[in-house]
């Protein structure tokens, strides 16, 4: 099996990794880089468990992406949202509102939310429901997830307002 040496940046850290041509990005993250926060669910783009961000805000299915095509790309996984041990507002909102039960869908759900809010900081409930399509949760019934996304949106916008007013460092 032929391999390719790729350089990519994951969660702000640069990696060089030699991958077989048929290696998916998800396999490279989990098996080569040992970043197991991103989950494998269906392998067909229907469950969203493997959702990661590419170049800061676009969400993709890492199970349907070849690692060998990721040369020079910036990837963000849910582990990359936490800064200095502090949960990201999206993570905090998911915890506070009980949007997590078994937790398997949560990394993908949080990354899909990060992408949604990056493109639309104030989504309506309909926009949240449409925006999270493709990410399946078998525990929560989605209601608490919707509430958590609304709360995260408020938290991020409030902190942005504070920053604009010069009250944050």
């Amino acid at each position, binding site marked *: 099996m032929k391999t390719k040496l790729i350089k990519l940046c994951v969660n702000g850290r640069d990696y060089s990794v030699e991958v077989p041509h048929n290696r*998916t990005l998800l*396999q490279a993250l989990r098996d080569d880089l040992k970043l197991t926060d991103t989950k494998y669910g269906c392998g067909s783009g229907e469950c969203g468990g493997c959702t990661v961000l590419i170049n800061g805000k676009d*969400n993709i*299915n890492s*199970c349907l992406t*070849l690692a060998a095509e990721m040369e020079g790309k910036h990837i963000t996984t849910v582990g990359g949202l936490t800064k200095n041990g502090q949960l990201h507002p999206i993570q905090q909102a998911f915890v506070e509102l009980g949007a997590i039960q078994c937790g398997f869908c949560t990394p993908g759900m949080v990354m*899909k939310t990060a992408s949604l809010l990056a493109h639309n900081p104030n989504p309506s409930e309909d926009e949240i429901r449409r925006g999270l399509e493709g990410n399946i949760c078998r525990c929560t019934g989605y209601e608490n997830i919707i509430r958590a996304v609304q709360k995260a949106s408020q938290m991020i916008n409030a902190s942005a307002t504070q920053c604009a007013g010069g009250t944050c460092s």
Partner: protein
Amino acid sequence: MSSHMMSSRGLPEFELLIPQTSPEAMDMLAQHRERLSVLSGGTALWNYVRGRNRVTPYVLSLSALKGLNYINEIPGEGLRIGAKATVAQLIENPAVSAKYAALHESGYWFGNPTVRNMATVMGNVLRASPSADCSCALLALGCQVILQSKSGQRAVDIDDFWLSYDVTARKPDELAVEIRVPEPKATTRSAFQRLTRVRQDLAKLNVAVRLEMDRGVCQQARIAIGCVGPTTMRAEKTEALLQGKAINDGLLEQAAASVRGEISPIDDQRSTAVYRQQVAGVIVKRTIARAAAAKGASQ
């Protein structure tokens, strides 16, 4: 060695080719022909490969090719959709939503947001599946697929592009580079509708309609319908039925009956032949009515 503990389902082995230029890609296509699959978004290809656990010896990635991810509106000519333009780009494009309603709606209902970020409009056409949503809208609007090889370029009309399930008019040494949709006239109206169980399912039925309307009278119609045969097909008898007539409830009922006689659906995991036969009439009727009532494109 099997020491590696795989934590997710992998892909069968192949050699990945990543050409840096179009001429380089043409050379690879000419060299490997049927032994090569073209990869762009991956949402269709990898599902196809995983479903069969089989892949061609070579996979050609378009990832390094520049300048193919455009959607351009050319005044007086129409829409040009590059091979790497995604469905997400399609639905964000203001010209598409203003003037090509059926195409916009097909993208809006397509897959889910993540799949739309990856999947290309061209890939949807090349997959040659009768359930393909953008393909259904493109057949109703009419378009050409531009194919390029070392020996030159040719345009294939969408009506001649799908030969059967999973088979297109693309020759093995050709790269599909662009879709060209003709500019709508002031009289052109279009609409798309599909049926699924949940939103991100593949369609159990889809319909797209393009009408040329003059004061409530249909001068010309194109009706595309998917999931009722081996390829997305035109309902030509029903199109002829509408020609020169005012769109009213009586004509819509005739259209519904007509389209049921034109299709030959099958049972599969998403629906039954009996249901599709019945509901096709209803969806065609509603899609015609919605297109007829739509506003024309502002030129």
